[in-house]
């Protein structure tokens, strides 16, 4: 499923929404997304002028953005064609990244898949852990783990709504 229908509900906008397509989704379990890195993506102009490489920090961001989809009941959304209540989206932010590896350089034109799995969800403390693996043509280019924190239910402040940064 294309991200377009969902994009209005996601906090990341424009070129900073690093997801093109949802390939697989299992609510509260896992998600796989796809992203093609266009040669004309402005990030490549400056990182680096002579040697365009997709920044490792963007790979972490892509995984965190994919992770937020795990917490949305997308199957219901696409089946019923109903709009998502903003309150139903569990907004999180990155608290910690662990054991992140950048195994291969990522270049313009490559198509990436981010495979993200929810490994732990501690509802009572409003936090979760995910593991991610980013592949390109079935080769792993990056992997790691991310801890996400959520606003406690019923107290989503504007600050908390800023979500995955």
């Amino acid at each position, binding site marked *: 499923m294309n991200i377009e229908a969902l994009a209005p509900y996601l906090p990341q906008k424009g070129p900073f929404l690093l997801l093109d397509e949802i390939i697989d989704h299992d609510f509260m379990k896992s998600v796989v997304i796809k992203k093609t890195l266009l040669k004309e993506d402005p990030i490549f102009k400056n990182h680096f002028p002579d040697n365009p490489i997709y920044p490792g920090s963007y790979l972490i961001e892509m995984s965190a953005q994919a992770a937020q989809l795990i917490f949305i009941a997308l199957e219901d959304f696409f089946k019923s064609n109903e709009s998502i209540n903003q309150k139903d989206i569990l907004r999180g932010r990155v*608290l*910690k990244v662990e054991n992140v590896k950048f195994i291969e350089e990522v270049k313009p034109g490559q198509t990436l898949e981010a495979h993200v799995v929810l490994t*732990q969800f*501690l*509802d*009572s*403390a*409003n*936090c979760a*852990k995910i593991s991610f693996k980013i592949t390109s043509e079935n080769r792993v280019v990056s992997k790691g783990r991310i*801890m996400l*924190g959520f606003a*406690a239910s019923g107290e989503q402040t504007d600050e908390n709504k800023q979500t995955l940064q």
Partner: protein
Amino acid sequence: MEITTDQIKNIMIESFDLDLTTNEISDDMPFFGGELDIDSIDMLEFFMKIDQSFDIKINKEELKEEYFASVQSMTDYLNTQKVTQ
């Protein structure tokens, strides 16, 4: 089976990324204000590992300052949670 202070010390070492052994952590070592330089993310990590190890779901709202006074007081608190959950 009661949770022991040594089990908690091992989880502290992992969660807080401490260069210490369990022998170097005393039962009366406080979580805050002592030689441990830990923050709120470290504490979340600690509670996630507690959940994994003992299946105790910590409720942030119910936490009291006194539980963090020492390794012993944290262990005592977790043992009460083990019974109630």
